[in-house]
């Protein structure tokens, strides 16, 4: 235990169990985020240690009663005054738990070593995982129990875009989570953990496996402080949708990187079996009128009617199964009849559906498919389906299965940045549903499945309802026990469904817009932290976790992996001539 006095508890104002002020010694200082400890002798209770974090630092000329006195004191020197520097401290912990205020005049010491760990509750954390560096260059931890579902789950990251903090921090956190050095802490969840990351903007995340040329010694020191070898992600798989109109050649729809990227799509068979039709109707307005009703009807009918076509893997035709034995097609294969619409992609599925919903001969739609909704609703449904077919039609195509499979690597990056917003929601919905369904079926929390999703406000907006929002709320509420953990990021938390935010045990914020910082969604911040949130630099975050009653400000080091093409260290990458 090292003793390093920095000042004394201010005696001219009340100290309390939540906050007090320190009058600093002449030869020392306290800055924001510094950790301190005060020992108070409490009658009958013995020594009580109060730990706290500095939330504000102040200075004043004592004796100056007019503002102009400053000139008389500092410039002319004709007026005596004492320079007094103080620091405001927010109490983080009282040990033992005797909730008394620190005594006025008691010495205030810097909390270092074991005292620092106590101030930050590291001693009480079941599994402390380093997630940043404090102002004292030492790691700051979160209790993993509150992320991986044991006591809490999920993480919510807020911050304005452009300073590249949200995604960067999410990836940094993932790197900490998957670091070899942290295996012992992460425990059994470390092996076979699967991370699904959506790249929604630019191509920032397509280089996670490549070293960064701008990685320097300063960043190296940061990683050393965290005890993790700075290296790109060792196990990453990249997936992208197929490029449109590329003919029979299937190439990933990415700009800067083409090698090592696999293409994913769904066959019509998979589209029908997985009920992906619902994710074509994710616009909040779609929930109005009767569209969800007719959509569910069509989904059910599609499952009954779809039958595989011999010699055309993944393709189906729609035939009434009532004449078949048992009334089901099962794995049966048929030959497509002449003139029968063959469903090979989304547009052809729409054509096939039109036979039932908008018959050419002008007759009434088949009530088995429409459930007798108003004709205008059927038209609206078809209109939306046509729009979806043009926006995300290329994601559904027959042929051998091209399903995205997450088993191949620890981190799976899905590049959906080039897709139309509706198609992005479709992909996110389809993949989340798949992930969640798998876990629901096994009922096991392990292995952990982590989902990183930026622009959460697009997928789970505060207003309106929809299948995607419902699912994200479901994941937020039940995912914790199923080991499906959401790392959601958004520019403005106030636009995200409150159920999703409320269930995030760990909350993180980068720089915030001034108006946004005042909203109730950031009530977990201290007033002083809110004021600072407008000024945070890239690489600095505020973290709140249930184990610590005050938010902590941490920095995280520059990544050793490239975040854009120009940063890729070609020399250190795979040999381009390899295999020639």
């Amino acid at each position: 235990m090292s003793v390093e006095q920095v000042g004394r508890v201010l005696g001219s104002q009340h100290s309390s169990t939540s906050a007090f002020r320190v009058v600093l010694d002449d030869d020392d200082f306290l800055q924001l985020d510094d950790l301190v400890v005060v020992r108070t002798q409490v009658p009958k209770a013995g020594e009580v240690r109060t730990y706290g974090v500095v939330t504000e630092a102040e200075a004043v000329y004592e004796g100056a009663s007019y503002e102009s006195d400053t000139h008389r004191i500092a410039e002319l020197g004709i007026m005596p005054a004492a320079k007094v520097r103080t620091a405001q401290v927010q109490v983080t912990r009282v040990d033992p738990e005797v909730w008394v205020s620190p005594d006025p005049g008691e010495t205030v010491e810097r909390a270092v070593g074991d005292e620092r760990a106590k101030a930050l509750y590291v001693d009480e954390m079941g599994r402390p995982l380093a997630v940043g560096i404090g102002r004292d260059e030492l790691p700051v931890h979160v209790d993993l129990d509150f992320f991986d579902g044991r006591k809490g789950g999920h993480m919510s990251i807020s911050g304005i875009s452009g300073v590249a903090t949200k995604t960067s921090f999410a990836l940094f956190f993932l790197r900490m989570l998957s670091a070899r050095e942290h295996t012992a802490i992460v425990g059994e969840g470390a092996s076979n953990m699967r991370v699904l990351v959506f790249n929604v903007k630019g191509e920032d995340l397509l280089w996670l496996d490549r070293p960064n040329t701008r990685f320097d010694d300063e960043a190296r020191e940061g990683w050393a402080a965290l005890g993790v070898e700075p290296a790109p992600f060792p196990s990453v798989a990249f997936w992208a949708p197929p490029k449109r109109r590329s003919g029979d050649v299937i190439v990933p729809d990415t700009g800067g990187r083409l090698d090592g990227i696999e293409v994913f799509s769904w066959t019509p068979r998979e589209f029908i079996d997985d009920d992906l039709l619902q994710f074509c109707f994710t616009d909040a307005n779609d929930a109005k009128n009767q569209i969800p009703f007719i959509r569910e009807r069509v989904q059910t009918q599609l499952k009954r009617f779809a039958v595989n076509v011999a010699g055309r893997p993944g393709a189906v035709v729609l035939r009434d199964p009532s004449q078949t034995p048992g009334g089901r097609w099962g794995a049966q294969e048929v030959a497509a009849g002449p003139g029968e619409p063959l469903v090979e992609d989304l547009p052809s599925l729409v054509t096939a559906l039109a036979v039932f919903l908008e018959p050419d001969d002008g007759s009434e739609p088949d009530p088995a498919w429409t459930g007798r909704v108003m004709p205008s609703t059927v038209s609206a449904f078809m209109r939306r389906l046509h729009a979806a077919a043009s926006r995300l039609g290329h994601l559904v195509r027959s042929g051998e299965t091209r399903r995205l499979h997450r088993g191949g690597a620890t981190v799976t990056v899905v590049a959906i940045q080039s897709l139309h917003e509706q198609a992005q929601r479709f992909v996110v919905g389809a993949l989340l549903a798949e992930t969640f369904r798998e876990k629901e079926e096994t009922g096991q929390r392990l292995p952990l499945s982590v989902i990183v999703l930026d622009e959460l406000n697009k997928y789970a907006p505060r207003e309106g309802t929809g299948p995607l929002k419902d699912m994200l709320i479901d994941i937020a509420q039940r995912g914790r026990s199923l080991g499906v953990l959401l790392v959601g990021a958004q520019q403005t938390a106030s636009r995200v469904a409150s159920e999703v935010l409320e269930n995030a045990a760990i909350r993180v914020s980068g720089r915030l817009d001034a108006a946004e910082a005042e909203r109730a969604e950031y009530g977990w911040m201290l007033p002083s932290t809110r004021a600072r949130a407008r000024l945070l630099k890239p690489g600095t975050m505020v973290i709140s976790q249930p184990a610590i009653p005050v938010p902590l400000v941490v920095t995280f080091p520059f990544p050793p992996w490239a975040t854009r093409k120009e940063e890729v260290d070609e020399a250190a990458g795979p040999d381009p001539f390899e295999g020639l």
Partner: protein
Amino acid sequence: MARIFVEGWDPDYGTPLDQDDALSPAEGSVDTSVETDDWAPIEGCDDGVDRIAFVDGVRRIDARLTLDDPEQGPTPGLVGTFAVGAVVWDRETRRSEVTDVRIERWAVLAGGSGEQMPAVDLEPGVSTTRAPGDDPNLLTMALHSKMRDAEGECAESLSAECAVVADGPLKKIREHATVGYVKTHRVTYVEPPLGGVIAELAPGQRSPMFCIAAQTPYARYSWYLRLAMLQGGHSWTGIVRCETSGHLARDEASAIADRTAAVLPLVASEPHVDPRAPQNLVPIGALERELRHRMGDRGLVYRALRHAVMKPEIQQEAS
């Protein structure tokens, strides 16, 4: 035709021209020819002295006492606290600091024979002294006199290392260069027409020196100077009188007078920050605030005094 002016000082402090003695000529001889016969404003001269100490004291009546003698009947007394100290202005480093603070508490009794104030749980404690009569003013004067003595000692000890300006007339005239600084003018020392020079002084100028009580042990040199000319002020606005020991060589006294005329306007206070501007100098105003603070909380002192005198009764009841 005389004009009418409103004084700048807060009315609670009286006026710089206190009419107690109606500007009457001083008792004893005033020698106006000690420096020059040619009376005219003299330009001040800053000799660059690097340290100037401003000495002052404040006092406070903490409680009124009554000494209840079974035979003589009740006689009055009081308990008061004073604090004296100095602000040393280091002109080189342009810093001022409060030094040499001394705090004393006194019980002043008008009658009785050897009664002592019981021990009071205060730091510093209360000593007992006696006043020569039971007039309340005499009691206060006794405390005031103790304070003035302490001021004198403070000024004397500082005069070894810096130029000293002490608030108020000099109490003891010794052969050191302490300057007494008099804000209010109760007495007219210089008769017309020479006195007209005072009204002509510009800020930074002084009158020629004159000698008060010349040829006596209390002889001192004195001069008027103007600190500032306030807007809307009359001809004596911002005028103060200074004095120093008459035992100094005349040239030395002249140099001191020149220095005060040049330097004191630099530390004059401004009307918006001090109710006695410009005469109450900035270092002295700050010193008084600090000294008042150092005397301790009046309520706590009062409580301790009551506790001290009632202790025997409390103990009696307890037993």
